[in-house]
């Protein structure tokens, strides 16, 4: 319906940038990260402006404070209910006063508005947040998003944003970014590396200091990978400064699920081949899939699908992890390109769920997650009972969307940055897919704490994948005695409840947090309040009651938390002489394009490494919601073997003749290609010099994919290609096929093994149909 032409990213006219840069400064103690982000703004124009900036914080980050500095003067704001905050802000602007407002959206992004910043003024916003870092397989991944990549879909309709909150991208935008981090505790002695930025490390006696070794920009997530950690369960207790007689407990559980050998997995692989994946992302996807295929075992079952604006399935029934199936799968992976247009994830998932008769299975999704309509996707998948495991790729993947999708279905999300090796992520994925399921989790808090409310616990656990739980305790302050919280659960195949983890709870007192850089002692209480607000509000799919919503709002205001129901607002009254006469002009801060998005280079590649691309294959982004237009990749057709001076050209097979060509609709097994009779007739009609010599020639002639792959991967595993093809064609020419007869072959010890093998396999060939086993290759007869 949309009549927009496929416009490109528009270079803005040379307006001076309103955002001068962002600096981040954080420290990690235990598993608690406290980060301060400073955004600096300036109005370099001659009129009063309203600066609007939509940005993302990491998934699980809880906003603690917003500090505003206007022209060097510190100002105080408050957190209040959304509607009141908006009213105050709008009234201030129409009075000619200035205002600052920060609101949070459902999808975890925030919009900052600075209204009536007068000509020449500067403003600096300091956003403090706290985040629990989760450990997975001995590794902690610290991520800070610095930009929002263009997303497929309509932001207003699909993501529920208002037009002023929709982020725009400008390829000429350039904002400096800087970060410093201090790691304390066991992290200071672990192995630390950043796959996204060149970093410098300084060792101090009690901490490891990290900074950038090269100028950074707001064009890719900052990722720090800390590995080699011993994965122990842990916990914190602290008094609640906002409520007398209450304290907060947080447990970080690292479940240990008893192993039982390598279970077989059942996975439907779905790869995002939309335009945004072009370039480094689709290469990383291919590496990840190559690793996945390599890790498949004989008893594993899998299907392969790719999607963009449409979805294409390689196989509709499961294949087993046989050598032939893996070879066929690898061939499919090698041909993956980011050429399927937009990102219609909901339709793709629905179609993938329905594969193999809708049998319960896991879905392994490889994507960058750049869609708006994620809530619809989550709702669809939750109903199906399929767990979604995600390998998230790209310099700025949609972290919040993908973690929510994985979590809602009982799966997990793993991230691979642009230059990171995919191997470790793939191994972790396999470990999760193969492990026994743990469910019906239950937490035993120490009775002395008198826990009165506990965060709803996820109903699944994976070995060595930590998660955290918060609770309110009706005791005023933690006492000195040691306490542990225990995680119990039921494991598939075991009758008794199993103790999965034990977390020792350590009291956190003001004295243990000396400097402003270390986490303040009210963080656990505020994180617990945040968890309670989220539980009251429910997921986007559930409809929370009005009472629950007002309780959530009241709680958020009390604990000064910015939630989807509450905004941070600050009003600065101007003296009458300074009040502007007109309403401010809009200055929306455009994002830098995520490095590597849609084929733009993430880094300079030496010429030799660039794979030869046939034809132009980068994307054409489209105005606000950027997506690539659909394309049909020209099928690669290697030239048929022809002599240098052909006397006559080879004839083509008549595809409209059902005797010669089997079309997809008329074939019960989905075989599309030349029939045995058609191939025999063609061979008779054309000179020997035109006959196919290699597998690719057979494919070009029109022999169906399954039969070609049978020849190449099954028969051709032990014999030279030319011999295999020649023997095969000899059989076809010698077959005397009529409408009634089928080919029969008797085992003859006199002829060579290759002839035996092909002859036996071709038994039952009729004039119009190949043998069933060949047509279904590489599936085995007993699969669904």
């Amino acid at each position, binding site marked *: 319906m949309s009549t927009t032409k496929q*416009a490109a990213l528009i270079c803005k006219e040379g*307006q001076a940038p309103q955002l001068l840069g962002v600096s981040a400064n954080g420290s990690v103690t235990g598993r608690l990260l406290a980060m301060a982000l400073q955004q600096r703004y300036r109005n370099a*124009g001659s009129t009063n402006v309203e600066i609007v900036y939509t940005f993302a914080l990491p998934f699980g980050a809880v906003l603690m404070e917003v500090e505003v500095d206007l022209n060097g003067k510190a100002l105080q704001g408050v957190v209040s209910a959304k509607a009141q905050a908006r009213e105050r802000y709008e009234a201030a602007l129409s*009075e000619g006063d200035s205002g600052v407002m920060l609101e949070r959206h459902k999808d975890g992004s925030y919009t900052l508005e600075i209204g009536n910043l007068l000509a020449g003024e500067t403003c600096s916003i300091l956003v403090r947040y706290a985040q629990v870092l989760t450990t997975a397989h001995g590794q902690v991944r610290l991520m800070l998003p610095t930009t929002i990549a263009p997303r497929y879909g309509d932001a207003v309709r699909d993501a529920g944003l208002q*037009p002023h909150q929709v982020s725009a991208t400008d390829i*000429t935008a350039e904002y400096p970014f800087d970060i410093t981090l201090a790691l304390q505790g066991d992290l200071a002695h672990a192995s630390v590396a950043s796959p996204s930025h060149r970093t410098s490390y300084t060792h101090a006696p009690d901490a490891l200091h990290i900074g950038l070794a090269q100028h950074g*920009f707001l064009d890719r997530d900052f990722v720090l990978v800390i590995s080699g950690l011993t994965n122990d369960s842990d916990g914190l207790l602290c008094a609640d400064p906002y409520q007398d007689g209450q304290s907060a407990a947080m447990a970080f559980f690292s479940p240990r699920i008893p192993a039982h050998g390598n279970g077989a997995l059942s996975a439907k692989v779905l790869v995002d081949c939309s335009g945004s994946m072009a370039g480094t992302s689709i290469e990383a996807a291919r590496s990840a899939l190559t690793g996945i295929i390599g890790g498949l075992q004989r008893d594993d079952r899998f299907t392969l699908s790719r999607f963009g604006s449409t979805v294409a399935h390689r196989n509709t029934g499961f294949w087993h992890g046989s050598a032939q199936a893996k070879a066929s799968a690898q061939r499919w992976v090698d041909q993956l390109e980011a050429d399927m247009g937009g990102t219609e994830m909901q339709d793709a998932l629905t179609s993938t769920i329905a594969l193999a008769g809708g049998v319960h299975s896991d879905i392994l999704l490889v994507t960058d997650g750049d869609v708006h309509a994620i809530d619809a996707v989550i709702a669809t998948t939750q109903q199906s009972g399929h767990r979604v495991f995600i390998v998230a790729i790209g310099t700025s993947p949609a972290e919040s969307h993908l973690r929510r999708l994985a979590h809602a279905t009982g799966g997990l999300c793993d991230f691979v940055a642009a230059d990171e090796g995919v191997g470790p992520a793939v191994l972790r994925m396999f470990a999760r897919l193969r492990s026994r399921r743990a469910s019906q989790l239950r937490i035993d808090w120490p009775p002395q704490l008198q826990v009165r409310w506990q965060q709803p616990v996820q109903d699944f656990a994976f070995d060595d994948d930590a998660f955290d739980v918060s609770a309110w305790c009706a005791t005023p302050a933690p006492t000195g005695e040691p306490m542990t919280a225990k995680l119990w659960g039921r494991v598939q195949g075991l009758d008794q409840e199993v103790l999965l983890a034990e977390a020792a709870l350590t009291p956190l007192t003001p004295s243990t947090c000396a400097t402003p850089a270390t986490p303040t002692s009210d963080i656990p209480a505020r994180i617990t309040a945040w968890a309670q607000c989220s539980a009251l509000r429910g997921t986007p799919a559930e409809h929370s009651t009005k009472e629950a919503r007002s309780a959530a709002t009241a709680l958020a205001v009390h604990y000064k938390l910015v939630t989807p129901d509450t905004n941070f607002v600050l009003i600065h009254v101007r003296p009458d002489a300074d009040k502007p006469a007109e309403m401010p002009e*809009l200055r929306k801060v455009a994002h830098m394009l995520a490095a590597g998005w849609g084929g733009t280079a993430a880094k300079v590649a030496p010429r030799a490494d660039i794979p030869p691309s046939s034809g132009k294959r980068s*994307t054409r982004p489209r105005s606000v919601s950027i997506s690539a237009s659909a394309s049909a990749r020209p099928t690669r057709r290697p030239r048929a073997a022809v002599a240098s001076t052909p006397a006559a050209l080879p004839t083509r097979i008549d595809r409209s003749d059902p005797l010669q060509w089997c079309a997809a609709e008329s074939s019960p097994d989905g075989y599309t290609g030349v029939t045995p009779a058609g191939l025999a007739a063609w061979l008779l009609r054309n000179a020997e010099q035109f006959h196919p010599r290699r597998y690719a020639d057979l494919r070009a002639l029109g022999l169906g994919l399954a039969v070609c792959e049978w020849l190449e991967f099954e028969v051709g595993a032990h014999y030279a290609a030319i011999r295999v093809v020649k023997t095969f064609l000899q059989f076809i020419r010698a077959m005397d096929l009529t409408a009634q007869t089928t080919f029969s072959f008797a085992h003859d010890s006199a002829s060579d093994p290759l002839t035996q093998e092909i002859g036996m396999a071709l038994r039952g060939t009729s004039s119009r149909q190949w043998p069933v086993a060949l047509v279904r290759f590489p599936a085995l007869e007993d699969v669904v």
Partner: protein
Amino acid sequence: MDHPPQALTLNELCVLADLPVRTLRYYVQSGLVDRPDGETRAARYGARHLEQLLLIKKWTAAGLSLERVRDLLHGDAPAVPDRPRQAGSIEVCSHLCVADGVEMVIEPARAGLSPEQVRAFAKGVMALYAAVTGTSDHGGRAGSRYS
């Protein structure tokens, strides 16, 4: 209604058009809706503004982007269907629109350009276009990278 239709305040217009106040103000800021008579507290909106808002609502509900809605509102010809593509493959390229009718096509991998170089190149091309066509320098960009 207390006021005659020619003199609605912003809040009254929001109620009539059934839009949030910020969205309405956004439309005025981005030029989709005409500016009111008067400014700030004294701003008044009339039937013309309401009409524009209702048209915007109708077209965005039908799936048009705001850019297209802006064209339609301000007198553009109705949409002409795109020239049908040639049968066969459609190429997908990375385009940069420097100005109306001036496009730059880049495949950075083939050209061997880093993101910084692409940005510098884009800026240079735009500056060149401005110089060549004699259009005024648009405010100039702050030269230094660091604040």
